């Protein structure tokens, strides 16, 4: 624990107070101290080119996390509800639904990278050539669309786990409650709102916690699909940190940005804990 967790974390925090650049990074911990300069540059110095890049990445990470987590949880729950009904071939459908989850992120990104290509990709072939839904071929991997180009595969990959997770919860749910409510005249929507949802709350809480952390630390999908610099519309915190640290040798900046991201996640965990404390105790 100390070796693989505490020492690297402390090292990272220490480096965020050092002036590490092309000329000094080889000295690593002996590099000159810069106090809070890295943090000031990122957060407050509008003349620093890294300042804009950082806030752009914060905004993009927020947007990416919001849609990915929202899509994964809502979609996962919806599919779980559908699959919870008795039907023929249920097991087969459930198994097939799990396939995106067992595909590695790397493969997901490569596959979708091809599917999004504006001229030969299957997405535009369906939207433009086969169905004629769109008149002009959108370019997915550049500009504003590139955010959707990474959000959709991320949801696609996260969905099966959320689905199986919720399905387990649904199947463990006592049927008597639903039957009693139905006898009392509650329709499906009201039963979902007052029985299913409250009973799933602890599961939603756990899913939410992990999904947000996973999305905020997402790297593989944007990196593989859009390259080391995904551009101003889809540059996430992790792609920014990795690029500035390892391609540009700005390890001080990278360490400071990493510390800020970690702090943001600590705040998120605290907020989450306050919001769902009751549910956790109940389980």
């Amino acid at each position: 624990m100390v070796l693989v967790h505490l020492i690297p974390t402390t090292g990272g925090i220490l480096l965020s107070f050092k002036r590490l650049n092309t000329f000094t990074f080889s000295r690593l911990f002996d590099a000159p101290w810069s106090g809070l300069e890295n943090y000031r540059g990122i957060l407050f110095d509008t003349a620093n080119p890294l300042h804009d890049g950082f806030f752009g990445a914060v905004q993009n990470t927020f947007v990416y996390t919001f849609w990915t987590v929202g899509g994964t949880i809502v979609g996962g729950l919806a599919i779980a509800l559908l699959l919870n009904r008795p039907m023929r071939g249920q097991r087969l459908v459930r198994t097939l639904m799990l396939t995106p989850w067992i595909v590695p992120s790397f493969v997901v990104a490569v596959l979708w990278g091809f599917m999004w290509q504006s001229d030969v990709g299957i997405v535009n072939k369906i939207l433009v050539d086969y169905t004629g839904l769109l008149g002009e071929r959108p370019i997915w991997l550049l500009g504003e669309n590139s955010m959707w180009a990474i959000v959709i595969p991320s949801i696609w990959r996260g969905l099966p786990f959320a689905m199986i997770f919720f399905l387990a919860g649904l199947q463990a749910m006592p049927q008597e409650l639903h039957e009693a409510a139905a006898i009392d005249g509650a329709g499906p929507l009201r039963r979902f709102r007052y029985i299913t949802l409250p009973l799933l709350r602890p599961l939603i809480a756990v899913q939410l916690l992990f999904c947000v952390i996973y999305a905020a630390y997402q790297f593989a999908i944007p990196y593989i699909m859009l390259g080391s610099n995904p551009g101003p519309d889809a540059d996430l915190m992790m792609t920014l940190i990795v690029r500035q640290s390892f391609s540009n040798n700005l390890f001080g900046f990278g360490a400071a940005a990493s510390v800020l991201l970690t702090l943001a996640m600590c705040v998120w965990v605290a907020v989450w804990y306050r919001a769902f404390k009751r549910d956790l105790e109940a389980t």
Partner: protein
Amino acid sequence: MPKRLAVAVAATALALAACGGEDNSSTDNTKAAQGEALQKGVTLTLWTMPNSPQPKEDLQKMVAPFTAKTGVKVDVQEVGWDVQFDRIRNAAVAGEGPDITQAGTTQVPFFAALGGFMDLSDRVEEIGGKAAYAEGIWNTTQVQGQEGTWAVPWFTEARSIYYRKDVLEKAGVDPATAFQDLDSFKATLQAIKDKVPDIEPFGAPGKKAYDLVHQVMPFVWDNGGAELSADAKQSTINSPESQAGVEFMGDLITSGLFDKSQLERDGTQVENQFKGGRLAVWIGGPWVLGSIDRAEDDTWSEEARANVGVAPMPTGPGGKAYTFVGGSDLMVFKNTKYPNEAWALVKFLSSDQTQIDYAKLLGMFPARLDPQQQVGDSSENHKAFFQAIQSGRTYAPIPQWGQIENAYKTRFGNILDSAAGVGTDYSAATVKSQLDAAAKEADGLLAQSAG
């Protein structure tokens, strides 16, 4: 097995023939090859990148005659391009790594600044020194404002225009004048667009390509712009001349001459689009020439394979044609236990015949002038590349260049995206503001110091 043996014997014979010449470098090679003062039985580790179809095996075969003559063994290790920067940097900083490594020409100043490499100034005269190389190529071994020679050029590439002879014929354009200057370049693309509608006139990769800056800078140089001031203290990428160069590329997109869907792809993918017959004109390096005759390369469409033409880059308003010249150098680690043996290997790899054999295998050009000329004389298309190398230009050899290139790459990418209609609206003001931002970032990087 007999085939391999035959290749090894042939390679040995060629190396011996090369050593038998009259010039100084060859005589020294003979000495090194004869094993004078070299420790037999030691093993040198050489890091190489995926240069040829079988990088490790091909190079191992190439150095077999060296081992046979000197008794010095060579362990060739392959390091992928995606990780080589980190691996070499870490090895240089930690002082633990191979004896020799290949490095991209624009990376040398950065690696040299880390302090983990040998200064070869006292030894390079043995292989002819500066005079044996084209100026642009020799510059890649230096660090601006510092004494010392930190690398030896190994092999070279420059960018030229690839075009489809059949498409030009259909468009009614004479290949001899098609790409003479920037205006005729544009007019040719327009003629292709008008008269040959089933092929895209031109395409280049966008920000996903590692070499986006190499694609754009020739047009900047043509227009009198530059990446940095002459003393390399300040960025000049936002000067009106530089802006004109970047706008030339952006305008190709807005006028529909540049297939904007290529911007989603990386360099290799766009290369395959040309080989597959989707693009009529493309700017690329000499390795594609080498792949034409390789029947197993099925990325080529039949029409494209049979109709490849190469032309030098167009001249700009200043009357000069610029192109990017790059390739790879060899660097010797300071911590090597066998500096003499490592140098002997560098010398062997710099001998004329080894240079020709290896460059041919790679589809690149030798780094040294004499063998370079020989490869240039081998065909009309190779001649265009030989000329390109002679007038080729590279970037200021400063340690921060890699970072500055990244900053430029980001902004060039944004500009091309906006020209393609997927970013901020494209206008001269957009280009200017992106280039201002690039210059600001570059100036910040130039101001970095060790203190």
